Structures are given as C-alpha cells and as structure tokens.
C-alpha cells in the first residue's frame, strides 16, 4: 500500500516529442503527470487538477504560456501561489518582457536546449521540497 501521495505535475507543451520525453521521464520518477497541449488547455487542466507544480512552455498555439500564466495568477488564491517553472526554447528579447515574466512570479526560467532532462527533474524536486 502506498503511503506517500504522488505529487501532481502539470506539463504544458505543444511539441509532441518533448511532451512525450517529459511525460515518460517524470512518470518513471514517480510523479502523477498531467499534460496539456496549449495555454487554453493548460489553464483548464490547472484549475481542474490543482497540480503541485507546473512546467510551462511559452510558444504555443491558441494561448501562449505568458498569457496563460497571467490568467492563472488572476484566477484564484491558489492560482496566485502555485509554483511555475518556465521551460522553453526561446530567449526572451528585451528587459521589459523579462520583467513582466518575473512580476508574474516564476520559480525559474530554463532553456530546454541547455538542460539535461535529469537536471530538470532535480530542479523540479528541489523546488517542490522548498514549497
């Protein structure tokens, strides 16, 4: 019988390859993984499942990651505080955009291409330990 509750992880990512890699890796690591394909989907899933942490991509169709994050933060008390790690491939150009992201409250901003997936796992675990 399982005594520890699995942590719920929401992964919002439109690229199927990356999504699959993360889903399988994190499942193996013992997380309960929920996936979403775009910002709209992600917002719905977040409100429904109340994950312990969200891994958020930025460039997505229908609604991008920043907009989703804005709406999430405005939505509820829970929405305001849920830890979010941005995991994307783009480098944000311009200080104003970065400031906007920081103001929304993110735990960190990781570039997929620079991070090994096992290091991403470590980062998620560390962040969850701190919250």
């Amino acid at each position: 019988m399982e005594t520890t509750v699995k942590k719920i992880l929401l992964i919002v990512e439109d690229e199927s390859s990356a999504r699959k890699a993360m889903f399988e890796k994190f499942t193996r690591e013992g997380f309960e993984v929920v996936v979403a394909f775009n910002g709209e989907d992600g917002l719905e899933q977040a409100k429904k499942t109340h994950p312990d942490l969200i891994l958020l991509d930025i460039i997505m169709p229908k609604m991008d990651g920043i907009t989703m994050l804005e709406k999430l933060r405005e939505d509820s008390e829970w929405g305001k505080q849920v830890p979010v790690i941005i995991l994307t491939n783009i480098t944000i150009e311009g200080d104003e955009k970065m400031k906007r992201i920081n103001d929304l409250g993110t735990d960190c901003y990781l570039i997929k291409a620079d991070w090994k997936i096992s290091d991403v796992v470590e980062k998620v675990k560390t962040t969850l330990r701190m919250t």
Partner: protein
Amino acid sequence: MAIYDFIVFNYFFYIIIIAFFFIVSFALMRQKSQVRKISQEEIDVIEKRSEIFSVCFKNFPFAIFLTSLSGKILFINTAFTELLGYNKKEITKINALNLYADPNDRILLANAIKKDHKITDFVINFKRKDGTLVGVKLNTLLLSDGKKEFLLTTAVNVSKERSMEMQLAESHKKFRFLYENSSDAIMRISPPDWKFTAGNKATLEMFQVKDEKTFASLGPGELSPEYQPDGTLSEVKLKKMIEKAVEDGSNFFEWTHKRYNGKDFFATVLLLLLESHGKNFLQAIVHDISQQKKEEESFRQFIKTTKTKLSGFVPFVGKTSSNTPEKEIIDFESFLKTIGGVIDTMKERNLELENVQRVMSSLLEDVSKEKNKAEESKKQTEAIIESSGDGVFVINNKGVVFLFNPAAEKISGWKKEEVIGKKYDDMIKFYSNETEKEPNLLIKESLCSGLIKKMGTKAILRRKNGETLPITDCISPIKGIDGKVTGGVIIFSDASKEREIDNAKSEFVSLVSHQLRTPISSMSWFVEMLMSGEIGDINEKQKEYLEEISYSNRRMEMMVSMLLNISRIEIGRAVIEPVLTDMGSFIDASLSHVELILEKKEIFLEKKIQKDLPLLCVDQKLLNIVMDNLLSNAVTYTLNEGHITVSVSKNANDFIIEVSDDGIGIPKQDQSKIFTKLFRSDNAKEIDTSGTGIGLYMTKSIIESWNGTIRFSSPVTKKIAADGEEKFVGTSFFVTIPISGMMKKEGTIQLT
C-alpha cells in the same frame, strides 16, 4: 627780338598755368559743410499750442499711446505703428490689454497704477500685430482732465539695444576681416615706447617680415635707415612725427623705410590717433611710393632740363642790355624753383587725398564683396534646408520657431504658417517612447547645456492629427559670437520603416532560436534517457552510436548559439552592461570552468595577476564568452602534460589579458585566416574534429564591440619533445580592454 618775345610769352603762359593749378586745387580741396537752417515757416506753424502738442505727439521718436482706464485705445502716434504694426484705424478695435504678451503683466501693471498712479521703467514683452514679441520699457502716467481719467504710456523698444550690440559685434568682426585682408599696410604702434604691436598681412608683405610675432618685436626705427633723405636721424624724426600725430590727432608725411632684409624704399605714412579700451594708440597706414618717387624724380629732371634749356637762351638776351638779362636769369631761376615747390605741394596734397580715397574705396569694395558673399551663402543654405528630405526647424532660445521646412510640414502634419512665430512645444511634441505621457525635454536640455542631443531609438512624434510616428531626432544648439546659445536646429525624420525592419529582425532571431532548438533539445533528452539505461540495458555498440548522436547534437546546439549571437552582434543590438569588476577574481572564476579538463589532461596552469590592479568596468557576460573561448581553445589544443599561462596586467592605455599555451600552435600560412568565420586549421582538426570554426570570429566581434583589440603570436616558446628534439610551439593570445572600461551600450537583447 623774337627770342625775347618767346620768353615773355611763355612767362605769361606759366602764370596762367599756375593760376589754373591754384584754382583747380582749391576747388578740389574745399569741403563746404552744409547747415540746415530751420525755416521761419516751420516756426510759424508751431505757434499754436494745441498744434504743438499734436505735432510733438505724432513725431515723438518713441511709441506713445493714450488709453481709457478700461484699456480702450484713444490715440497712438507714428512710432507706435512702427513698433507694433497697428495703424490708427485698426487700433480702435484693439484693447490695450491685448498688447501684453504675458497676461500676468496686465495684472501687475494694473495694480501698480492703482497704487502709485504711474508706472516707471517697466520692462515687459508686447505682442505685435503679426504675433511676434518685442521687449519694451513702459512708462505710464495716470492723467485726469477733471472729469475723466486717462492713461498716457510711452513704450521704448529695448530689444533694439540688444540687436544693436549684436550689430556692433558684427561690425567689429567685419572690421577685423577688412583689416586683415586690406591691401594697404595697416599697423599699430603703442605707447610708451611706440613699438609695433600689430600689423596686417599687407604690412608683413611690404616689410618682408615672416610673421606678426617677428614684426611685433620691432619698432619703426628698426624698419628705417639710419638717416632720412633730409639728413635728419630717423630715430629723432620718428619721435617728432609721433608727437605731432598724438598732438593733432593725425599726421601725414613722407618717410623712407627699410625692408627687413635691408633695402630702403620710399613711403607715405598716415598716422591716426585712436583709442581702444581706454588706451591711446597710433594706427599707421603706410604706402610704398617707390614707383611714385620715380615719377617725381623724372618730373624734377624735366624741370631741371627745361631750366637748363631755357638758361641756354640767356647769352642771346645778354646782347640787349647788361643788367636786365642777369636779373631775368635770377628771377627766372627762382621762379622755376617756385614752380617746382608749388607743384611739389600740389602733389603732396593730392597724394594725401588719393591715399585717403584709396583706403576708403578699398574698404567699401571689401564691404560690398562681403555683403554679396554673405547673401549668396545665405541663399544657398536656405535652398539646402528647403529641399532636405529630413524635417528641419529652427528655434530661438525662447523656443519660437522661425524656420520650418517642407519636410517638417509633411512629417509633423503642421503647416509652416501655423508654426512660425509661435513656441514649438504647443504643437510639436516629441516623446521618448510609446508609453510616456509627457513630451521629453531634450530640446530644452540641449539649449541649456549647449550640447548636441539625440533622441533615443524609441522616440516618437505626435503629429497634428494626434497619431504617433516613430522618428529619429537630433538637436543642435546655435551659438552666437560670444558663445551663448541663441537658438537651436532640430532635424528629425520618419523612422517607421527602420523600426519595422528592426522589429522584423528581432522577431526573426527569436523565431530561429526557438525553431532550431526545439528538435535539438528533444533529441538530446531521448539520447540522454537511452544512455542512462533507465529504458533498458544497452550494449557497447549501442552506447557508442548513441554517443555519436549526442556529439552531433551538442555541436548543433553550439552552432545555433553562436550563430544567434553573431547575428545579434551584426545587427548591432547586443547590449553592453559594464559593472565594476575585480579582474583577479574574475579570471579565477573563468578558470574554474576548465578545472576538470585541466586535471584530466594533467596540464599545468600558471596564473599571473598584476598586483594592485584597480577595478575595471566590464560586461561580465561578454568577457565570459571571450574567456571561455580562449581557455577552451588553449586546453583543447595543448597536449597532455602541457603548460598554460593566464595573466592580467595593465599599461597606460589598456588592461591586457594574456592566454598562452605550449600546444600545437597556429601554422604561419593559416594565421591571416584565423579570425574568419568557419575557418579551422588542419592541425586543429586533427586534435578535435568537433570545433565549429566560429569561436574566434565571435570572440573578435565581441571584443571590437567594446573597442578592445585581440592579437596573437605563434609559435611562442621552445619545448623539448619526447624524442629529445627542440621544437617551437605554442600560441599566445592578447586581449585588451581600454583603461576607461567598457562603455555602457543600450541594446535590446542579451547574448546567451
């Protein structure tokens, strides 16, 4: 007898000529000054009292106007119309209150009237009919005729005084120009020792002196022979001439000068006593009359010869009587002398006149030439400004626009007539960026500081119809003769196209970084998970193949990163954010990145940091990229058990970072290509096949963006190889950072 007749006839002839000369010369020299008398008629007219008043009022040289207490204007004079532009008909429609440029002035003056019943020497700005402002000094009296009260005001234009000052300064400048470029030799001698203190170009040429400095070390005595032609000592006669000039105010005389190289020459000298800054000095205009003297001499010769010729006739005269002929001879000789003397005087007087005339006419000629030149260049400048594709407008130091070219009309949406004569900031508003609510103050800052200012890359202009337009803008203050700012020139142009292109480039870079990196990252994750064995065990061959995929992937990732950074540098948008850095600690941090591989290859690292280095402003991100590149090159291309040295030092101009190794070096034939894109030497390829060939290119671009330099030497050191042979090996790279540090550069992006 015939001969006697001949002489008598000529005697009279000479008298007639001389008389003629006298008459003509006196007529030439007389200058009658004309005095205008006030006619009796005018005096008669002025008798009536009321007419005295109206004539005085009308013709008073300053503006006078009479108003009711409510401000209704009852009378104005001609000077008022001249000053403010309203004629007698128009003025009845205007209330005096409308003349005041600043509404606060009305209140001030109204209060003063109430309190003191007068206003004394109030300086304010009036508004003319055409809207321009003029500074006036007001004096007002409250008058009463028993029944009603009136205000009588005089307004004196004080802005003229200032423009007079400027005109005076202008004419000083013109005089200076004329002085310098006059073809007459003009020079100055000053008390107490009456040596030369100034001389124009013509003076230096005449005396054949090299430069004004040499000239100013001389006195008139040194540029004259020891004796004058009349036998007096030059030094003595000099003093006399100078004294006379000081006493009479001027002195005109002939003088023999000596050129600097020794030759004498005849001259006329006109000395004028002038005053400057409270001190007296003599200005001398010297005329080289060597040519004239020659002519005079030949004339004298002519007289002499004539005399001799005529004297030759005398023996014949002697035949008639014994005494009379001799008397005739003596009289005739002295008469000829008198003729000569008179003619000399005539010549002198004429010369004097001529000289003065010549100076005046050459001055006049120069002035009119200058005027023409100025007009020409004014027309040219106006044409250039009118046809410029950039918007140009010119303001005075109060912000009033007085020039607005067609391009400015087009870009801003305002017409020339709407803007000229008014303050620019009511209509033309520049903002630093889209979000600013208040217009920026750069124009005002430029005028205050006297420095050229440029608006930033996000500057916009609000057009007449309210819409905004991205613009580039440059403000240049205009300085007057005294260096004070008198206005400004603002040049601006529509930057919409450029902004669009900039945005498009920026978006492209973002897009590329995303699109290229996405497959790379997915691939590397899957490879990683396979290689970790968490999906299942893999055999040696599978591991090998996976490592190959991993290598290729890493290379691609590095390429994408470098290509992105290069494109950003080339677009010129990389930001430089310097912070005060301790170079020693910085180098330590850089070295820590390569610690592991140094250990693995057993390479010995030597670190040399100069003592007491001051802190330096550097952008650490950029410097990191450079250091990583140089260090990784050094480590990669040095063989096991090799030696690497890293040192930081400084000289008078720069900080110098040196990275030296005793590795494979750079072959001579490849050295010129080492900084080019995608170049790799063969010997480098042998050691490491995965290099990109763009590291050094990027490093150089980054270094140049902070005005530093990079250079290298190879080979640099001797090493004894395994087979005992001595080889020349190694490479040293030197990077400089200016001692003033890296300059902050605004860009919109960071390098990764």
